[in-house]
């Protein structure tokens, strides 16, 4: 089963797979027109600029946002798994921001009403940084943060 999945990806090629997924109705046909995309948001170089571009102001810290399956020390800074779940009512979006990345906003997910506000993705990190999960819920912004280390490696026990 697992081997099959790998095989499909290897031999099927991206285009074929995407076509299949679209045909199966798993991805929207009008993907390119998805709302929420903003070049300005993703161009921000600092936390302040990113928050400003998103219109988030000064988000309040929230215990209702949780990271899951997110490492404390990245095994590979090139693919750092990030999982975020929001328990805030009326969650509209989840953004991932990385303080020390050249571009602060790493990902932005919009949730249509009735969607489970949970995301799982992989981001790139150049160095050890605080990573923020910024949630828009009921028109207001909330945040939870954690440090993810990107180390030089070696020297273990």
């Amino acid at each position, binding site marked *: 089963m697992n081997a099959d999945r790998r095989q499909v990806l290897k031999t099927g090629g991206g285009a074929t797979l995407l076509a299949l997924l679209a045909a199966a109705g798993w991805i929207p046909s009008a993907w390119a027109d998805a709302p929420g995309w903003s070049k300005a948001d993703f161009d921000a170089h600092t936390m302040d600029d990113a928050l400003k571009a998103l219109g988030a102001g000064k988000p309040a810290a929230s215990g209702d946002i949780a990271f899951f399956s997110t490492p404390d020390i990245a095994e590979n800074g090139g693919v750092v798994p990030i999982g975020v779940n929001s328990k805030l009512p009326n969650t509209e979006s989840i953004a991932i921001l990385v303080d020390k990345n050249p571009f602060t906003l790493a990902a932005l997910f919009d949730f249509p009403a009735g969607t489970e506000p949970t995301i799982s993705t992989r981001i790139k990190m150049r160095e050890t940084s605080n990573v923020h999960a910024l949630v828009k819920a009921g028109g207001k912004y909330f945040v939870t943060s954690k440090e993810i280390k990107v180390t030089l*490696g070696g020297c273990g*026990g």
Partner: protein
Amino acid sequence: MKRREFLQGVAAAAIAGLPVDAPLAADSADGAHFYDALKPFGNVGLLHITDCHAQLLPIRFREPNVNLGAGASRGRPPHLVGEAMLRHFGIAPGTRDAHAFTYLDFEHASRAYGAMGGFAHLSTLVKRLRADRPGALLLDGGDTWQGSATSLWTRGQDMVDAAKLLGVDVMTGHWEFTYGTARVKEVIAKDFAGHVDFVAQNVRTSDFDDPVFAPYVIKQVNGIPVAIIGQAFPYTPIAHPRYLVADLSFGIHDERMQKVVDELRSKGAQAVVLLSHNGMDVDLKLATRVSGIDVILGGHTHDGVPQPTSVANRGGKTLVTNAGSNGKFLGVLDLDVRGGKVADVRYRLVPVFANLLAPDKDMAALIERLRKPYAAKLDETLAVTEDLLYRRGNFNGSYDQLILDALMAEKNAQIAFSPGFRWGTTLLPGDPIRYERLLDQTAITYPYVTVTKMTGETIKTILEDVADNLFNPDPYYQQGGDMVRVGGMRYAIDPTALIGKRITRMELDGKPIDAKKQYTVAGWAPVSEAARDAGLEPIWDVAARWLRSQKTVRARQVNMPKIEGIASDPGMA
């Protein structure tokens, strides 16, 4: 309560209470009955070995005199050394236990009490304990296949054979993975099938997050279902070359651990034990976050901790242990399981004194057979040491200094780095440094020696990075090794500061290190693929060449950093 019983258990030893300078007889009064106190208790017996680092024969291993705890861990087990350790656990000075658990009076006590560990002696002890503990399991916490010449040359096969003969039932791993993922899978399929369960809940494929090993095993012990969950070293791909475990992802994964525990309880497990290679500080934190584990049998950080730490959590409490290293100890956990749960517990970390335990004949024969093809090479005397040679400790050891001195001399380098490994046996003054004893310090699958031009800024970045792996106040950011050993360059360190601020006063030949200037730095154990493919010399060749040229190794000037921010600490003597 527990501490008192521990004292009673070794009452004879405690009564002996020999002063430090007394002439300790090789088999003094405390010796003859040393193991008599290990009476069984309850109805489930679990025996635990960990981090033996492939030491098949008895060895000497000096415990650290610096083992600082970061943040809230300061002064708490396992971060106690010497007299602070003795006081906390009520161990009388000048006894066998004091020798086993501390560095105190090491040379004198080691000559008196002899070498420790060894699989033939351990096997005798295991058999004796199993005889009155029906169905008792033997659990191996890993770091078993690495740390000696013969384990390296047989890719762990000598240890696999010895562990099977010893009767290991369940195992997890760390250095095992440095022979590559395929080798671990090969041993599981060829050697372990039907004999040893290899368990690791925290290892998944890095592409689809699929499980790679069984997360746990449920064993019937004396008719009681006992679950053993495995936790491999979470930072294996970071602490070692990524290419060795290219397709695997590790990590701590305590949410998943909770699910596993809940699943096991729902399946009717009456005792749940975590066989962990997290390291003790990580285990202590994990025990606050995951509930339903009765006992964590821990390893990795090489802490010989006489009694468990009890940690409160939502589900009640979890006992956390750590069973030392290099074959010095056997953890003996006796559970009384009643009404479907653990009602009472006894735990002792039992030192394995080779001269108090007759070697098991079958194991001795196996070890002899395994070593025979390599005997001539192992026995070559490279030099004789005039001083005590040891490694373990947060900042440096005399054996590491020897390696640093060899690196700087042989590679004509201004500065040398040597990894802060916690394995590596100890030699007494006057001992020959045989080839085997050099490999005890160096036997890894990425032994390449590098010589690199580094700016002062880069050197500082490296020291800060490694220091944070050791002294980050959050245990989940700690990797469980010691500070990189530094030759040539002096520096000061404040372990209580945050990353970027710990390392100061870097100096070479009395002059401050210049951030922009380049320095020649020799090192070994690089994690990059490029270093593997560069045709570099292995560390044992470089060190052996230097040792042969010395013939007699004089006492080393051990380069210790100046430690700041800590006035006095129970973890430093």
